[in-house]
């Protein structure tokens, strides 16, 4: 009935399983990661103090900064000989978030993606059309291995070239689509332009993630494609996509609690949030070997939904993600920190820190990022080519560092509003 037996585990069994796995993980990081040994010492904790999941709150948090401070391999808990794959998030050189996987980790991850696909109704007889990017980003390869694990046929088409995507869907008979929700809407426009109808396709479901989306986007996607559109959640630090996933009830994402223990905390105090209230989502991985993380602060905001789900799965659900505790932007599925854009802009000679970032999305379009930079005496040139070369330089640098295309617009001096205190650098016009 379910892809894996754990999906309707009883609360008692789950607690026992989580406790055993947590104890093992705590021991593993204590013995293999100097960073954690030091953190535990500071918190006056020894592995023996952690006897069950009830002791989880005694453990220290881990943050993205900890990963950066220990760049690249400092938090790995397995010898490099056992690491079979590396993934990394985009970011300024030296500030990437690097994660690793052992053979067991890859196998576990594939199993969880297979679980997600089967939650969308997919079986070995399906053809998975995977347009997540292949590369350092976890989306492409994550879905790929999971689709193979399920025994389905995977088309590793990756992103871009929308017309070819539609042709492949039509000719190869794709039945399940995996991509970002905004790309799903964008592809639907291309399909319309090409005169292809949903009756020409065999698509029946899609797993969409890597960026926040809404119920109204779900309605659009389901209508335009004639499919069930489900939300898949994950982050590379914890594993990649497949940390939590919606079932066909489409009411909250089941967290795969046999591998990840979720907590909701008040991000200001670090204490547990009141049951059912919104707060920062925190995960502890309890089966990972390559880079297990203890109480990792995701900075994503959500709440737990303790009611029983009609689908019969007993894993707790989290509500659709409703925001961030920091200023991280998700642009076409890529995590972008404004500070990284600033670093790039400031590295161009003569440019002053008067800039503004405008994020927008046309209806059913992809995210656009426009960086407006004020012209000053030192970069103004009488010659057009001089100015254009500044524009191109900023554009190229941002593209190479962040891996996303941007528009750069030079604007007149003092045309960007000066604010008192913290400057308002980001204008996010997207209606999600």
């Amino acid at each position: 009935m379910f892809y894996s037996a754990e999906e309707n585990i009883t609360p008692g069994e789950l607690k026992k399983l989580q406790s055993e796995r947590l104890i093992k993980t705590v021991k593993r990081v204590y013995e293999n990661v100097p960073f954690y040994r030091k953190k535990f010492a500071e918190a006056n904790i020894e592995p023996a103090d952690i006897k069950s999941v009830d002791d989880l709150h005694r453990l220290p948090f881990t943050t993205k900064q900890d990963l950066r401070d220990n760049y690249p391999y400092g938090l790995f808990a397995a010898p490099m000989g056992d690491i079979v794959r590396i993934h990394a998030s985009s970011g300024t050189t030296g500030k990437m978030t690097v994660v690793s996987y052992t053979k067991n980790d890859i196998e576990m991850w594939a199993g969880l993606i297979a679980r997600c696909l089967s939650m969308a109704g997919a079986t070995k007889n399906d053809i998975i059309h995977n347009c997540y990017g292949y590369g350092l980003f976890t989306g492409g390869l994550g879905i790929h291995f999971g689709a193979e694990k399920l025994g389905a046929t995977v088309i590793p088409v990756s992103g871009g070239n929308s017309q070819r995507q539609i042709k492949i869907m039509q000719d190869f008979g794709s039945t399940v689509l995996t991509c970002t929700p905004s790309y799903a809407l964008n592809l639907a426009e291309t399909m319309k332009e090409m005169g292809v109808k949903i009756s020409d396709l065999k698509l029946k479901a899609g797993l969409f993630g890597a960026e926040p989306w809404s119920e109204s986007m779900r309605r659009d996607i389901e209508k335009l494609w004639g499919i069930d559109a489900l939300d898949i959640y994950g982050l590379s630090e914890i594993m990649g996509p497949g940390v939590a996933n919606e079932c066909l009830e489409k009411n909250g994402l089941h967290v795969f609690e046999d591998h990840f223990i979720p907590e909701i905390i008040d991000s200001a105090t670090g204490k547990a949030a009141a049951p059912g209230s919104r707060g920062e989502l925190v995960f502890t991985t309890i089966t990972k070997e390559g880079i297990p993380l203890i109480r990792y602060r995701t900075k994503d905001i959500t709440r737990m939904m303790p009611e029983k789900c009609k689908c019969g799965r007993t894993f707790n659900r989290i509500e659709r993600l409703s925001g961030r505790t920091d200023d991280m932007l998700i642009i076409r599925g890529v995590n972008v920190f404004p500070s990284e854009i600033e670093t790039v802009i400031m590295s161009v000679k003569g440019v002053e820190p008067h800039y503004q970032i405008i994020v927008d999305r046309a209806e059913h379009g992809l995210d656009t990022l426009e960086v407006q930079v004020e012209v000053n005496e030192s970069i103004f040139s009488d010659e057009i080519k001089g100015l254009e070369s500044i524009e191109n330089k900023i554009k190229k640098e941002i593209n190479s560092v962040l891996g996303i295309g941007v528009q750069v617009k030079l604007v007149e001096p003092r045309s960007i509003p000066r604010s008192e205190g913290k400057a308002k650098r980001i204008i996010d016009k997207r209606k999600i």
Partner: protein
Amino acid sequence: MKIVQLSVFLENKEGRLADIIGTLSAAGINIRALSLADTQNFGVLRMIVDTPEKAIEALKKSGTIVKTTDIIAVEVEDSPGGLHKVLKVFKDSAVNIEYMYAFVEKNNNNAVMVFRVDNPDEALKKLKGVKILKADDVYKI
């Protein structure tokens, strides 16, 4: 003789050109010649004015970025082949023209062309048999 040209950065936004010209008008500055180069996002306004220093002061006061560039102004016979005669001198002396534009008014019944070249000194040396205008002449056309 090199002549001072003012260049101003213009964002591609309605009303910006009017604002700049308004600033000059308020300062009592007369524009002798101008050209507007544009791209998708911005433009560069190039001007020869009667009193460059006064114009720069007024523009800077209004927060506009203004740069000066040395250009050459040349009298060109207002008859077929007039412009070619001048361009051929540039070609033969391997002087590259970055851009050029024309005065609206004539001088002694001849057209006046403005040239921005990569090597103004070389160009001035080689331009023989062509009337090169002095700054004062140009500002008063």
